[in-house]
């Protein structure tokens, strides 16, 4: 079966459209024993036009999912944010605390004909988290035999989708000056403007200016959001902020 995955990897390199990728993914998923696939960024896709989402789930299920704005709260998506290795959905209760709503979503999916599944997380630094999931039809048996191959299919598919998206929605990365970045790092550590001025040996007004420019570059109004955006795209690192 590895030959099948090798051929898939070779093929997707040449594909140019998400429709073509969806077709190739449906084929390889079926060959590996899975009726459905869903490749997605973990965002509310109705609000983010640059978000990737392709799938072959039953009609109706995906619409309902979007109606509820579940992209970021789906238990499978949440679980895939806590690991970098593929996991079977049966392990969800060991990975995250499942709420009553989560159980309701999982039950509803089953009612729509979606059975057990396997999800490959896709984390690229500085970009929204995503994943590629594979699911059996509700009545089909879930086999663990090809999970390591699905891991590869998920990763290479996500990268192909990412390449297609980039061609359509290329945006230059936001860059801060070194001084702005230092101010943001100290702000993220909870320091006031006055404290940052003392730490860096610059004037209070200059710190205010640096942080104002940094907020403008990210298009946010609040200090907290500035810190979150800068952490998210890797301008500052968690280790910088959490360092004692």
């Amino acid at each position, binding site marked *: 079966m590895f030959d099948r995955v090798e051929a898939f990897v070779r093929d997707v390199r040449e594909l140019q459209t998400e429709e073509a990728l969806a077709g190739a993914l449906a084929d390889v998923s079926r060959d590996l024993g899975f009726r459905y696939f869903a490749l997605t960024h973990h965002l509310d896709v109705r609000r983010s036009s640059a978000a990737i989402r392709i799938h072959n789930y039953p009609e109706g299920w995906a619409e309902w999912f979007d109606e509820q704005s579940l992209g970021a709260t789906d238990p499978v998506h949440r679980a895939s944010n806590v690991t*970098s290795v593929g996991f079977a959905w049966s392990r969800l209760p060991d990975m995250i605390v499942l709420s009553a709503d989560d159980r309701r979503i999982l039950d509803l999916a089953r009612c729509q004909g979606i059975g057990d599944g396997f999800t490959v997380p*896709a984390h690229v630094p500085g970009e929204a988290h995503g994943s590629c999931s594979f699911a059996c039809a509700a009545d089909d048996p879930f086999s663990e035999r090809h999970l390591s191959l699905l*891991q590869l299919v998920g990763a290479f598919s996500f990268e192909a989708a990412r390449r297609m998206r980039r061609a359509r929605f290329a945006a230059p990365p936001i860059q801060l000056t070194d001084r702005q970045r230092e101010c943001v790092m100290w702000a993220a550590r909870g320091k006031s403007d006055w404290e940052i001025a003392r730490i860096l040996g610059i004037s209070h007004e200059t710190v205010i200016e640096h942080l104002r420019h940094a907020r403008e570059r990210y298009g946010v109004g609040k200090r907290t959001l500035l810190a979150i955006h800068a952490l998210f795209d*890797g301008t*500052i690192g968690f280790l*910088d902020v959490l360092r004692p």
Partner: protein
Amino acid sequence: MTIVVEHGCASPSAERMLRSMFEDRKSVFVDLLKWDVPVIDGRFEIDQFDDRHATYLIVADGDGDHLGSARLLPTTRGHILGSLFPELCAGQAPSGPDIFEITRFCLSHRQPAASRRRTRNRLVSALAWHALGRGIRAYTGVAQVGWLQQILAFGWHCRPLGPPRRFESGMIGALAIEIGSDTPALLAANGIWDIAGEPPVSIAQAA
């Protein structure tokens, strides 16, 4: 600056970089990632492949201290995939004079996140640059699958060499990275290619 140290050379100018590289490798692979690999003098992570056949690509700061590095091993003799993890390949582990294995890809933690990212980009660019200059057609490598998405996201052409397997240290897979004249453009499309003003400098073998 970025330098290439070939044939395990130990010229004085490279010595400081190599020393701080072996120290950073200890802090990354032993202290942080908890790999079970040998440590010399309690300070340096040096194993049996750090010999005169190894080539090092090193990104260093103005003082010559290590910021990031990778070790290249020839696949025509013992190397990590061929000798230690052959079961990760569906067929034979790729080998030949134009195939090298990337090992010990290391980014120093003594730099903030933004700088670490720049170092990473310069190191990945140097890998492509070095391969094109030396007629290296492909790199191979063994990696935790958690890194796979990042390696693919650099934009270069990769292909899996076999199904990943679960080891005590996690799930591990083997990959080939094909280098060609289009590689710099593929890296550039992902904002990785960073070599322009300052191509890597090769340091010749010491006598």
